[in-house]
């Protein structure tokens, strides 16, 4: 398992460690989906701070994961998008609209604790 998933209080935190392969992304999705059920988790933070590129494939993967977790009853917050990565995404025409985002882990957990809804 290349993406460590930690339980923090009522939430799960998945920290993506650098460039992730497609298979690892898929494994992360399966693991999160299973653990959301096991822990009855209402919120998941995915930290992408170590990712140097969020291309169209990775963006779509994050969206799929958030959709799957939503169907499992959990809200997903993406945190840690780096400034250069954000700029490249916007230039390219990618966005994470419909997904909740926060600056960092702390912000993500606060967002989940407050029970804010995504846009």
């Amino acid at each position, binding site marked *: 398992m290349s993406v460590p998933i930690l339980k923090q209080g009522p939430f799960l935190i998945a920290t993506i460690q650098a*460039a992730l*392969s*497609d*298979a690892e992304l898929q494994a992360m999705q399966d693991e999160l989906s299973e653990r959301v059920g096991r822990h009855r988790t209402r919120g998941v933070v995915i930290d992408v701070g170590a990712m*140097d*590129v*969020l*291309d*169209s*494939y990775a*963006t*779509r993967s994050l969206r799929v994961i958030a959709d799957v977790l939503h169907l499992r009853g959990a809200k997903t917050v993406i945190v840690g998008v*780096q*400034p*250069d*990565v954000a*700029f*490249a*995404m916007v*230039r*390219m*025409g*990618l966005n994470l609209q419909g997904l909740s985002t926060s600056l960092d882990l702390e912000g993500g957990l606060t967002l989940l604790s407050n029970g804010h809804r995504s846009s």
Partner: protein
Amino acid sequence: MTTTTTLSVRLESDILAARQHGREVAEQVGFSGSDLALIATAISEIARNIVVHAGGGAIMISELDGRTGIEIVARDDGPGILDIDLAMQDGYSTVASLGLGLPGARRLMDEFTIESQEGHGTTVAMRKWIRTQSARR
């Protein structure tokens, strides 16, 4: 003298290797910050295009004369693209993807050309110039 590195692209892990190498070359040329992310992302998109649609190919990365920029050429011998105009439209995809790969890469780079012939593969060539006064063409 221009040095060109040719990287074989067949597996998904090659996408990672190609964009990492591209970032290194771009850094050597003198790109920084957000430009590095733009270049790495564009390489990621065209490399994935090869893996998904052609099954294999090569990416050539060169620094342009006098360190004025970077050139990336992606070449495959896949089935080719029937309708390039359609393939360059946002949201058009023949697989389950966002359909932003090629048009997105074009927006990230300064120059972008694509040539394809049915049954004879596809070649994408893209360039980005350094945006400093001394290096501006």
